[in-house]
């Protein structure tokens, strides 16, 4: 066990966990930030996507010991009032079916659009291909990312 100081959603936290503990489980079990989802645990599905210094990162394979002083942002901290342009676009397009993967999808899209504010549809496809949606909301995800890009 070791002690780690983390910066998550602009706040500081201290946790006592084994240094191989994935950030995902620190967020979920120790900080109560359950918007970041567990699904595959091996960086295949993207349900656990968070931002580390703005970069989209699969938190299920990111050991807490590797996070250091980096700024971690989760879906809970993407915006204060749930009104980030990507969240707004998701609402407007009414993307979700079961909704379980959508937090990760939104985090993937938000990081992507920050780096590429005027993407082509092909670029959107490439970015969002990292995240799985078992309900098959892919058409709406594409539509919502394009709408968010337009509104940002």
């Amino acid at each position, binding site marked *: *066990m070791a002690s780690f100081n983390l910066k998550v959603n602009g706040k500081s936290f201290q946790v006592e*966990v*084994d240094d*191989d*503990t*994935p950030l995902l*489980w620190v967020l*979920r*079990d*120790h900080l*109560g*930030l*359950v*918007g*970041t*989802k*567990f*699904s*595959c*645990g*091996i960086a*295949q*599905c993207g*349900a656990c996507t968070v931002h580390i210094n703005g970069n989209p990162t699969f938190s299920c394979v990111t050991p807490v010991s590797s996070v250091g002083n980096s700024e971690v942002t*989760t*879906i*809970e901290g*993407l915006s204060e009032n*749930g009104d980030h342009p990507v*969240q707004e676009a*998701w*609402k407007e397009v*009414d993307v*979700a*079916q*079961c*909704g*379980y*993967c*959508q*937090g990760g999808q*939104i985090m993937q899209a938000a990081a992507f659009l920050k780096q590429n504010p005027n993407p082509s*549809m092909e670029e959107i*496809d*490439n970015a*969002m*291909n990292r*995240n*799985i*949606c*078992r*309900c*098959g*909301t*892919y*058409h*709406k*995800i*594409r539509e919502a990312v394009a709408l968010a890009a337009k509104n940002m």
Partner: protein
Amino acid sequence: MKTITRESRRDFLKIASTTAGGLFIGFNWFSCDSPKMEVLSTEEVLSQAKPFNAYLSISPSGDVVIYSPNPELGQNIKTSFPMVVAEELDADWGKVRVLQANLDTEKYDRQLTGGSGAMPHSWERLRKAGATAKYLLVAAAAKMWNVPAEEITVENGIISHSGSKKSGHFGEFVAEAAQMQAPEDVQLKDKKDFKIIGTPIKNVDADEIYTGKPLFGLDFYREGMMHAMVQRPPFGMKIKSIDDAAARAVTGVSDVVQFENSVAVVGNSTWPLLKAKKLLKIEYEAESTVESTADHDRIFKELMANGKSEVKRQDGDIKSAFQKASKIVTAEYQCPFLAHSPMEPENFFAHVKGDRCELIGPTQTPDRARQTAASILGIPAENVTVEITRLGGGFGRRLRADYVEEAVHISKAINAPVKVTWSREDELTGGAYRPAVRYRFEAALDENGSMIGYKLRGVGMNAGNTTREHNFPSGAVDNLLIETVNYGSSITTNAWRAPITNFLAYAEQSFLDEVALEVGKDPVAFRLELLDRAKNNPVGQLGYDVDRMIGVVKTAAEKANWGKNPDVKQGFSVYFSHRSYVAQVADIEMQGGTPALKKITAVTDCGMVVNPTGANHQVRGGIVDGMGHAMYTNLTFENGLPKQRNYDSYRLIRLKEVPEIETHFIDSGYDPTGLGEPALPPTGGAIANAIFAATGRRLRSQPFIEQKEFSDIKLEIRRS
């Protein structure tokens, strides 16, 4: 006003006023045929002395709360059920709040998610509940204003009387309405006057979903709760010995518990358990057959050739039809086992407290969860409560209560509240799969290319009846034999979205394509020829509505420009399941010698569409699901264990792999029928038939990408 006070015979709806002065309306699901209303006293409501179903409540401020009884797993029932109530109530949708009801078998008679059956089951009841509430509010306004009820209008939560220029919101009339007796029967709205039904109302949980609020079972947490993960045996095996020393040594692991044939590691957080589970040294021994995919291949061949079958349907004289046939077409189709693989892995919270048990989590069948817990603990079912969380997908997996059982066993053993969490590997190896099935089709054709004989023989691994014997083309062929063979495998199976038809439809619709092309007929014309026969001179029992099926076939052909563009190679498929009809056309264009799947056009007749957004979601989602599993996904076994254990080898369809999907709905004037499943079955056939049209390769096994016929085909997926 006489109808309001008239005595009624039976117990359907109840009203109660509470201390807050609101109007509470509920209805008894067990006696909706002959409604009766009753005013309950506040004491009766609060003490629950009488079964009271708070299905719908209206507060003095005019806020409407509607309880949604069925588990929500993405089929959008939590949004569409309240829409139906609010429609008849003429409520302001902006003032409607929807709450998930917990399990209550006294109030609800079909509190489950499965079979695409919720809306057809509840449509009439939901409408009556809303209409009755409106009737009472209008009666209250009429009394308070001293005007005739017939002159009162209701719109958007506002009650008005134009003659006296009086108006007010619902809340102003609830106290008076709660004192009234309800009508025996109410007038429902004419469908043409619907304002909410048929409009794209947004998901009622959207804000919570998109901001990461704890909604799902896996998000549930309670102070003092323990976590557990479970190691289950390979299929057909049982535990011989356990060495748990290394697992127990992991920091954060508090206990290792054995129950039945499983071993649970228990601790105060999840990560130590994921590590400890891998350190369990468990030796297994055979308990029944320990099977591999090679065994299944052999068993399938034996049973297809010689297995004792159950005849499901027999029409005419099949033997002589095949003797006098001028042409016989035969083909075999096969599909693998599949996992359900919802994005949220299985999980459940249980707290066993003496002779009581509290359950919380994602389940499609809350009552089964309750009964299972009661049976394990030897306590009455009424001592078990079930709180239903939102489900991160289901696809049939959460019809089972195996993961609930685990939570109950562990909570009892450690005498503490516990949440069991499955990993993705657990989910893929933990059983209850879509059964592997094979079919052999034989068609006898006369010299005109008419199908005079049809044989279907299905063999399934724990699949039950692998056929749908009264479905098309039954009724359209004089001589027909449909039979099924079951193999009792040690590998567990369960309903999987559109059970059986998720594969049967692909096989049948591909085979009919083969037959049509063999006799030189257009695949759509060939189907219509069969349907005309079923309509004009049906053979035996028909399990489908021929006109509705013809409707979707013709409309799909028209919308997809069937056969009009020689550069577009098309595949057609149509299927009836879960009371709805869906026809699909897949378009492949050759681009520089490479086939590119560009579009799937779907035409659905599910009766009236309640929510176009939700309906589109279900049709597109069903098609993406059907396409993904037909194209990419396989689950094979070695010594009782799946070889594919996570998404790196168990391949699910991704965003770049979906073509454009164009959806159309036929308003056939029927009440809503099922939609969670019916769009999936036709998809595999439409794609396989288009691939044949484009390449001449017939795909008779899923997943397509693993077939040798597909090995040199580079199918691109293109979207516009």
